[in-house]
Structures are given as C-alpha cells and as structure tokens.
C-alpha cells in the first residue's frame, strides 16, 4: 500500500481545478443548487464546508490507519466515517455558536446539513481508495473543500444576474438554467486538465 507519488502543490491545485469535487465528480450538487441562489450564504457555506472537509479528512485518515485497518473492519468504514463527519459537524456547530454567534445565525440550517453533503464523504472515500498519506489526505481535503467553495461562489455570482433575465423559457427557469450554467462551468474547468493530471 504505497501512497501515490504526487507533489503536494500539484495535488492541491488539481483538487481545486482539474478534479473539482463539484464540477467533475458531481459531489455536493444538491445543496449547491439550492444554496447558490444567495451569494452571502454561499460564501458562509463554502467556508464551513472547506473547514469540515479539511478536519474530517485528517481525522478519518487517522481513524482509517490506526483503528479500522489494524482491526480489519474495513466493511464498517462507511458507518465509522459518517459518525466522524457528524461528530465534527456537531462540534464545529458548538464552537461557531460560542465564538461567533453572527456567523452561526448566518449559516443556520446549512451547518447540520453538511453531514449529508456528498462532497465530505466523497473526499474521504477518494482518500481511502487512492491510499493517500497523511499530508496528502489533508491537502486533498482542504483543496477539495476550496474547490467546492470556488465553484459555489462563482455560480452564485452568475445566478444573481441570471435570475433577473426574462429571456429564459419558462420551463427552463430556476433549476434548469442553473444546471446548464453548471455544465458550462464544468466545460471551462476541463480546460485546466492539460495543466495538472492526478488520477
């Protein structure tokens, strides 16, 4: 079980640009579409998701290599990862509530919902499958989060303009045109793929 030979910086850039969690792996699309209506909450959610993914990938890496693998209980890994994610989200919620009530209010319901954000579990499962070492796992986690954050603020900025446009056919309004926008963004991000390649 050797860690893949990838430089830290290229892994970080790749997880933001070429293998963007959202635009090339479709992870976290649900909350992405519903939240990106509003720029401010997109910003808050982006920060929260980045933090959760970064912290969770570090903890899950430790859990995977010090608890799950030695005990040989790989078949339980989904349940264990979910518990770790839920625990981290709960803790983060309490910390934010204690130190920054205004941010807590701004995030509202979105914070507990990060538990079921596919991007978090997705990053952790990719980390497990690709046998990243600890540093790589953390970099990949924060990079994946930052990529998600970048994508959601980009889309939110486009949507503030888009929702005022009356030329869109009625059946395509709202979600439909958002999906098409995401498609174009995904195409643009494919343009980066010549730069860095990570499996």
């Amino acid at each position, binding site marked *: 079980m050797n860690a893949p030979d990838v430089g830290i910086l290229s892994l970080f850039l790749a997880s933001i640009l070429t293998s963007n969690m959202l635009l090339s792996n*479709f*992870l976290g699309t649900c909350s992405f579409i519903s939240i990106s209506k509003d720029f401010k909450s997109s910003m808050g959610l982006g920060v929260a998701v980045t933090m959760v993914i970064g912290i969770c990938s570090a903890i899950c890496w430790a859990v995977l290599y010090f608890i799950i693998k030695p005990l040989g209980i790989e*078949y339980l890994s*989904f349940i264990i990862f979910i518990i770790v994610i839920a625990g981290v989200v709960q803790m983060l919620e309490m910390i934010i509530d204690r130190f920054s009530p205004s941010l807590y209010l701004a995030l509202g319901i979105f914070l507990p919902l990060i538990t079921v954000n*596919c991007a978090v579990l*997705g990053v952790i*499962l990719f980390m*497990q499958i690709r046998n990243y070492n600890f540093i790589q796992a953390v970099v990949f986690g924060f990079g994946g989060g930052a990529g998600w954050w970048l994508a959601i603020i980009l889309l939110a900025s486009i949507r503030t303009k888009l929702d005022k446009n009356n030329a869109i056919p009625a059946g*395509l309004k709202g979600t*439909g045109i958002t999906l098409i926008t995401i498609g174009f963004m995904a195409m643009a991000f494919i343009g980066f793929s010549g730069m860095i390649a990570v499996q």
Partner: protein
Amino acid sequence: MSPTRKVLKDGLWTNNPIFVQVLGICSTLAVTNNLRNTLIMVLGVTFATAMGSLTLAFMKDVMPRKVRMIVTVLIHSFYVIIVDILLKAYQPAISKQLGPYVGLIITNCILMGRAEAFANANKPGLSFIDGLANGLGYGWVLVCIAFIREFLGFGSLLGIKLVGEGFTPWTIMVMAPSAFFLVAIFLWGANTWKAKASQGGQKK
C-alpha cells in the same frame, strides 16, 4: 385513487425526485456515462431508499427526535454496506469502477429527503412503497440519460458495440458537462409538459 397508487404515481412522475424535488443528482450522475453501471447504481439506491424508509417508519415512535438525523444516516449506511458487500462479492469489476460512488449512496439526498418527508409520518408499508417509487422515479430518468450518454459517447449499449466504423464518438458525452446539460434538457421537457397538461384541462 388508492393511497398506494397515488404514492407510486407521485414518486414516478408528479413528484419525481429529479424533476420536482431536484434531489440526489450528486452521486449518481457521475456513473451515467455507462448504462450497466447506472443500472447497478439505481438498484442500489432503490434498495437503500425503500428499506431505509421501511425501517425508519417502524422506528419513528420509539426514536427521540434529537438524534433522528444521525439515526437516519446510520440506518442508511447499514443498507449501503449490504449493497457494497454484495457488489464486491459478485461483481468485483463493477464495484471497482464505481469506486467511491457506492458509498456515496449514503449521502444521496433522496434517502434523507424521503425519510424526513414521508417515512416520518406514514405507515411502514406505505413508506416502503414510497421509497421504492422514488428510487424507480429517479432510476428511469438516469437510465434515459445513461442510454443517451453511452450511445453517443461510445457508440455502444451495455458495452456492446452497436454502430459501424464510420461513427465518430462524441467525447463530450463521456465527460462531466454533458450530464448537467442532459438533466437540464429533461427538466425543461418535463416542466413544459406539466405546464401544458395543467393548462389543457388536466389531460394526461
């Protein structure tokens, strides 16, 4: 209309998870460039949704409200682990191709959505049918998308080559953007159809 038929119709069309609720597009879009993987994925999602809703409907009276979310997720992980182990045992090649996406069924929003919106307030039998209907309602859309993507992207269906040498594969169909475009087009069609149907005196 009997409640069972209404629930079925809701899941498959009127309240289709993709067109109306816009849920669960996360994990499974990634596998729709291949019809066989999509079918396996749809079966997994349907199984987990139906069984999860059934279990939750049984448990809803004894479960404290505070821990509801986490219990729901744990029940779903339990069923997804069953799917994962079965796949690893009988279809190791497909399991490898799907990679993390099998595990990601846990966080598929449809599961959580149905658990919160339906299984929480309904009888176990009906919840099971609701889960089944939503899984299948989600499934038929995905199968349509996978059909188009695999046919245009590789010129094959279920891995069998269907077109001759002269066919140029549409590379875009294999890549991520096409999935978004196709879902959007489907959504557009469904919305327009619905708007027409409700204007034209409820004809089907």
